[in-house]
Every structure is written in structure tokens, then in C-alpha cells.
């Protein structure tokens, strides 16, 4: 599993990448009450703000970590946003994407580097 500086985790699954947010991010956000996901089939560029997460405290965005296409979204977290706090690394994945260049995945932090970043 790889990690971004924006506290997303990226898990390869065949030729797709599953994206979610880390435990640390979910704790910082507080109780999530609303999630807005992009449409499946949408082409995205790295850095595009494609997900909105609202906690009781504030709104924040999730950016596309890579160029590619959104293949599948997790409707379960739209229907039950609390899942993002309950199981951020498991059931509360956000979307699956097909990266334009899968080799770019290697450029992200591994778990040790991410843990060092968040201290």
C-alpha cells in the first residue's frame, strides 16, 4: 500500500488502484457526515478535487492522486458516511481508478515514510 501527502492510501488491485483516506486523516477530520464522490467513467487529472468530505467541523477535498479514469465508486460511504471513521482502511474505500501510468504508483510513500511524516 502507498500513501500520499494528502493522507490518501492507494492499494493496487489488478490494473486498478483503490483509493481511500488514512486512519490519521479520518481522526483529524472528526465525524464524517457527508461524502460526495465523482461519477464512474470520469477522466481525471492528478490534483483534481474529485471528492468532497464534510465532517461535523468542516469540509475538505480529496484530490485525484494520478491521471486516469474513475472506474468504480463506493456508494456505501455516501449512504453511511460514518463508515469513513469506523473502517477507513477497509470498507470505507472511496473509489477505484485505472491509472494512465501505473508505474507512477512507485513514486508515493510507503507506510514507514507516511508514519514518519505524520509523526
Amino acid at each position, binding site marked *: 500500500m502507498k500513501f500520499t501527502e494528502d493522507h490518501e492510501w492507494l492499494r493496487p488491485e489488478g490494473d486498478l488502484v483503490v483509493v481511500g483516506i488514512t486512519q490519521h486523516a479520518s481522526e483529524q477530520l*472528526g*465525524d464524517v*457526515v*457527508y461524502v*460526495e464522490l465523482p461519477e464512474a467513467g470520469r477522466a481525471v487529472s492528478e490534483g483534481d478535487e474529485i471528492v*468532497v468530505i*464534510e*465532517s*461535523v*467541523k*468542516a*469540509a475538505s477535498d480529496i484530490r485525484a492522486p494520478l491521471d486516469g479514469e474513475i472506474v468504480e465508486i463506493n456508494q456505501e460511504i455516501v449512504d453511511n*458516511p460514518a463508515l469513513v*471513521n469506523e473502517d477507513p482502511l477497509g470498507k470505507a474505500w472511496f473509489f477505484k481508478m485505472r491509472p494512465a501510468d501505473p508505474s507512477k504508483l512507485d513514486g508515493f510513500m510507503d507506510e514507514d515514510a507516511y508514519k514518519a511524516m505524520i509523526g
Partner: protein
Amino acid sequence: MADLKRTVLYDLHVELGARMVPFAGYEMPVQYPMGVLKEHLHTRAQAGLFDVSHMGQILLAPKSGRIEDAALALERLVPVDLLGLAEGRQRYALFTNETGGILDDLMVANRGDHLFVVVNAACKDADLAHLRAHLSDTCDIAAVTERALLALQGPAAETAMARLVPDVVDLRFMDVAIRRWDGVELWISRSGYTGEDGFEISVPEGFAEKLARKLLDMDEVAPIGLGARDSLRLEAGMCLYGHDIDETTSPVEASLAWAIQKARRRGGAREGGFPGAERILSELETGPARRRVGLRPEGRAPIREGTQLFAADSGGEPIGQVTSGGFGPSVGAPIAMAYLPADLCEGDIIHAELRGRRVPARIAALPFHQPSYKR
């Protein structure tokens, strides 16, 4: 966090695992490990303990010794009937300015031979200067600096507080009383900022931690941060100064006309005689151009403070703005307060601009959550 003040309960907050944030010049707990959502729901179901020691506590003692003189003097600054405030009772009030805007909102209690006033943290220095500038001729004005202020709120607040001070059960909503506990005076009012039954308790700083720990040791009581305090007061339809009310909003626009008793209105025994009376009294008769209303957005997306509101689902100029908004944990949906043209009615649909999209929202009655005060 340099230059920020700390309340006497700072170490306790840290020990309890609070996340501390800057608020009105203080380092305050925004949430504890329980989290905002559960803290909110716990307060509605049982009892929550809040540290509100950052708020200003002020004593107004009439130089003549007659409480009526203090009441009449303070009436010069607020559109509220204070002469009619009985001993042992508390009332909501507003400092107005010359243009009819609001300088601060406050609580005023009649304690027999003097008035006790509680004001917002961010305004307390200005309020004290305001009082000194206008009331020094008739009153001795003293900032209470060595007392903490706790709020115990929720349906189990009475049970919890009665273990320490049994006769608090005799207090009704907006009663105030001084009671002894552990050898010191507690200044207790049956009031709060959550829409729940409960108490606000002023306690000498040296005893505040002991009192807080006694309450927190009880099964019903959990510590609650500013995050849940905000969502609780929003559901209760209460204004947050600097957000829902400020120097540009009149009490009538703010839907706070209920705080202006007959005696201060046109034809009343002490009509006017407060800053901005001309505008405020005429707005009471003819109605304001805009007013504070509740909003229930359709769907699940919260609309936050600053969100622009429109009449139609596209085009047009904004007709208003959200002043407080978020998710109401007890309502189970997003809720907001906003200023909108007064000709719009409850049930009307307006549109909130959210990330470039217009989301419909229905004008809704305030409060969103019915209070459960002990009258």
C-alpha cells in the same frame, strides 16, 4: 500557541485528551476523544460538562443601594425590561449600538442588591469599557476575574448537580441562586446554550477543578468541547455573536424581538431610551426588511457560514447568506441559519450555492430541536 490565555481547567482538558484550539483569545477544548458527534448526542441523552470560563462575568452594584437604580441604568444600554426582572431571576439581553445593531448578547441576573452579568468572551473587554463609560455614575462595576464558569447541560444535569447541591431541584428555568458547596459559594443559574435543561455554575477558580472532577466522576456526565457546544446551540436556534448577530444586525432582524418586552416598546412604560431605539422600535411595528430564519437543505450536504443564497436555481443576485450551518446530529440532517428577505415564509424553497452548484433548501422554523427546559 503563544499569547493565548488558559482557563484554570486547562490541565484537566489536556489530561482528558482534549484537542485544544484558539478561541476568543483562549486555548479551549474543541473536542475530547469521544468526538463532536457523540459528545453532542451524549449531552442530549445524559449530561455534558462544558468549560465556559473564558466568558466574562461582571457585577453591577448600585451606588444608591437600590437595585432599581442598577436596573434602570443598564436599561439605558439594552432594549430589555430589567426593572421588571424579579430577584432570583435571569433574562437574555442585548447591548445595542446607535444604529440599532448588536454589540453583544448577554445574560442579566437580579441578585437582590446587585446585577450579575455574563457576556461573550470575545466582547468582554469592550463590554466592560461600555458599561464603565455609561454606568459609572450610578453603579460600581467589577469584572469577576477569579471565578471559573462551568455549564452542566442535559436531561441528567439535575440529578448530577443535586448530588452536590440538593436544592437545585427547586430552581426553574432562568432562576439564579447562590449556594454553598465545599465551603465556597457557587453562583448557579438554571440556563444554558444547548436547548437542554441544565445549569451554569460560577465557582472560585481554586475549586473549579475539584467541582469539575466531582461531576465528571458521575456516570451521566462527560466532558464536552466547543465543537458540540456549537452544534447544540445551532439545533436550539440560538445565535452565536459575531456570526448570526453583529453590529449590523438589529434585534428585530435577528428574530430576537421576543427579548424586547412591552415596557420598552412603543406605548410601554419605559419606551425606548436605549441606543438605536428609533430603528428598533420602528422595525418592531413595520417589520424588518430581512430576518434570521432556519434552513433545512435538501439532501445531506451541509451548507456552512458564508454560503450565498439565491431565489432561483440559476442566475440572479444573492438574496441572503448563511450565518451558521452544519450537520445537526440530533436532527440527523444538515441545518443552517441565514438572513433572508422578510417576505419569504416558512416552507419556501431557496437555493444555496455549494461548490458551483445550487442546492435547494427549505425555510424552516427555529429551533430545529425542541428545548426541554424545566419551567
